[in-house]
């Protein structure tokens, strides 16, 4: 056993796959200890907040302020608040006012503002300009003036008795707070989803649930496949015929269709994550049964099995002691593949809206389902779906690598 493990861990592919999977598992186990929030808790009011550090505005006003005199601060402030459509509008006005189009560069903020202030005249009427347009340009001019002002913002409080605003302090443009001194800062590394839930917390929890679904489904499928394969292969005769008939039927009837039918019949309320795992397990045993059977048939007439038969051992004894050890490596590889395909099956079902019910636990498929329903991919909200796809792909990839590695250890003929 020890020697075998050593050999397995010498295979590069297996180790690579194993490390990816182990990292994912570790994150799933450790993350909830660090961030103990419930994964389904709705924290954001609104949909799809972008990833970033969210600093409480109220707290940062009352936090100690520091004055930092930074040269680029004013410019950055203007650039970030000077919107694209305003720049376009300014260009239109300038062109209308007779400036050559080649001289206007809307990306160059300083030059654009300079041209605007030297040329803009609120009384001037450009050809084809309506009154509404003129008022718009006057408003635009005022807001740009406001942008450029260097006065401090005033903090005012309502007086409890007279309801009159009273100035309680000012925030000059050079005021800074230290993030560490702001009481409430929330880091959302992957933003929020369509319900305003923290995507990262949800993703970690969903990965855990999906892995559990995969493991339950894989164990069930492998157990059924193993038992049917062993019985069919070893006992043979009419039992073999019947089992193989059923197996061949289920090979051609797409298991995806069975999954849809069964999940729909169970109904939304009854579909927990565990139920779905069991259903997936019961529809995906076919491959294991076929493969185990053919392995058993090749073992059935080996000398040591015949010897065991002659010694009068029971069928159960022969199967457990003389056949199982020879196919154990194969069964483990089948189990790994079943787990990864179980995770994929859950994801596919959930996208169809037939996955586990949504109020219970998150799964990778459900996250994908919500992101698709709320059009995250069309709206460019990559954080809602891309990490999910990457996680699914990583899990499947790592398990496949482990499998290939094991295959090379157990079947020397496949080694490169």
């Amino acid at each position: 056993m020890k020697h075998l493990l050593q050999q397995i861990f010498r295979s590069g592919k297996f180790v690579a796959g194993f490390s990816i999977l182990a990292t994912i598992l570790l994150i799933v186990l450790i993350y909830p200890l660090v961030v103990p929030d419930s994964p389904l808790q709705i924290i954001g009011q609104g949909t799809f907040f972008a990833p970033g550090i969210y600093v409480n505005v109220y707290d940062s006003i009352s936090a100690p302020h520091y004055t930092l005199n930074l040269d680029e601060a004013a410019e950055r402030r203007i650039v970030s608040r000077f919107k694209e459509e305003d720049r376009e509008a300014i260009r239109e006005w300038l062109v209308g006012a007779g400036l050559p189009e080649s001289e206007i560069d809307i990306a160059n903020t300083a030059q654009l503002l300079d041209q605007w202030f030297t040329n803009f005249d609120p009384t001037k009427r450009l050809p084809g300009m309506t009154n509404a347009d003129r008022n718009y340009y006057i408003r635009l001019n005022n807001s740009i003036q406001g942008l450029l002002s260097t006065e401090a913002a005033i903090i005012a409080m309502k007086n409890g008795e007279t309801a009159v605003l009273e100035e309680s302090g000012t925030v000059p443009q050079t005021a800074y707070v230290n993030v560490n001194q702001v009481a409430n800062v929330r880091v959302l590394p992957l933003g929020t989803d369509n319900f305003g839930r923290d995507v990262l917390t949800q993703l970690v929890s969903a990965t855990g649930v999906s892995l559990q679904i995969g493991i339950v489904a894989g164990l069930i499928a492998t157990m059924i496949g193993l038992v049917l394969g062993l019985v069919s292969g070893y006992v043979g005769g009419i039992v073999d015929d019947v089992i193989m008939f059923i197996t061949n039927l289920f090979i051609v009837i797409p298991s995806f269709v069975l999954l849809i039918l069964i999940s729909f019949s169970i109904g939304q309320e009854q579909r927990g994550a565990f139920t779905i795992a069991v259903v997936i397990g019961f529809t995906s045993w076919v491959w294991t049964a076929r493969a185990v059977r053919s392995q058993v048939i090749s073992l059935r007439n080996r000398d040591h099995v015949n010897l065991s038969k002659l010694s009068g051992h029971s069928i159960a004894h022969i199967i457990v002691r003389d056949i199982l050890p020879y196919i154990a490596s194969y069964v483990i590889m089948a189990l790994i593949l079943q787990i990864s395909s179980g995770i994929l099956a859950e994801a596919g079902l959930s996208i169809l809206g037939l996955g586990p019910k949504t109020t219970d636990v998150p799964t990778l498929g459900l996250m994908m389902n919500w992101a698709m329903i709320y059009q995250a991919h069309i709206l460019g909200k990559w954080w809602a779906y891309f990490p999910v796809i990457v996680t699914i792909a990583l899990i499947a990839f790592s398990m496949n690598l482990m499998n290939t590695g094991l295959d090379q250890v157990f079947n020397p003929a496949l080694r490169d």
Partner: protein
Amino acid sequence: LKGYRKYFLNKLLWFLVTLVAAFILNFILPRLMPGDPVAAIVSRLAQGMSNTTGIQAIYEQYAEQFGTNRPMHEQFLLYMRNVFQGDFGFSFSQYPRTVADVIRSSILWTIGLQFPAIIVGWIIGNSLGALAAYRRGSFDKVVMPVSIFMSNLPAFGMAVVLLVIFGVSLRWFPTSGGYGFDLIPNFSWKFLWSVFVHYQLPFWSIVLITIGGQAIGMRSMAIYELNADYVKYSRFMGIKDRKIVRYVFRNAMLPQITGLALSIGTMVGGALVAEIIFSYPGLGSTILTAVLGQDYPLISATTLIVTLMVLAANFAIEIVYGILDPRIKAAQAD
């Protein structure tokens, strides 16, 4: 061709048996669940539709059509009769359209999308795999990891990635639907072009997924064959390399054809989900609307149609296999 007849009849018989089994499963699975389907339908209708005449019509028609108060075997005969007449009843979610009508408008999209995509993917994948096995070296080192990674990406994942890159960011192709929203299906050049443009992303996402798995399989088969004794013997005999490669390719391809037959069900399942991502007007999107609308007759009919398609594809592949594999000819000649 006389030798093939037995093989062909054998496969046809097996096809019919699986067909009956698929019918039975499709009939029995929803009825195995606790509570009778009509009660479930009534409770669902009570929450959903506002059109009371519609509800009444569906309910009466349904109870009569499926005779749910009769014994099981009579229900089954009734079901079979209805199915053979192409009568699946009314769709709940799209009343007053019939289920047959809904399916008729979506099935061609699915067939037109999936089968060419799977076949093209299969051909490209096998060629790449065989080339990787034959050339080895740096070509192999590039093709293999890419194939392994692609075959591990779920079909819907590939669909989303392609959609975001080519549909949303680059705006080369439209992001959803089977043709432009402003068009009515007809045979004008404008409509056909629109269909063609909408076809590209779903098509390539299925092709790319198929390529990965097939290339891996073909590569290991071809490596195995290249090391076989008959190849070494042919080399000693001085047979030209190109001729040997043809033998090798043919031998390695046979298991790949069986593999295609066995995995086509899984592929179609994945491709149906990919359709949903692109809102392609095929059976996948129909299943989604049916699930969302709790539309039992539509789900039951769609799953039956998908099963039929997969079984028919399987049958066709088995027939092709019979013609290609010389061992079958030999076995039947005895």
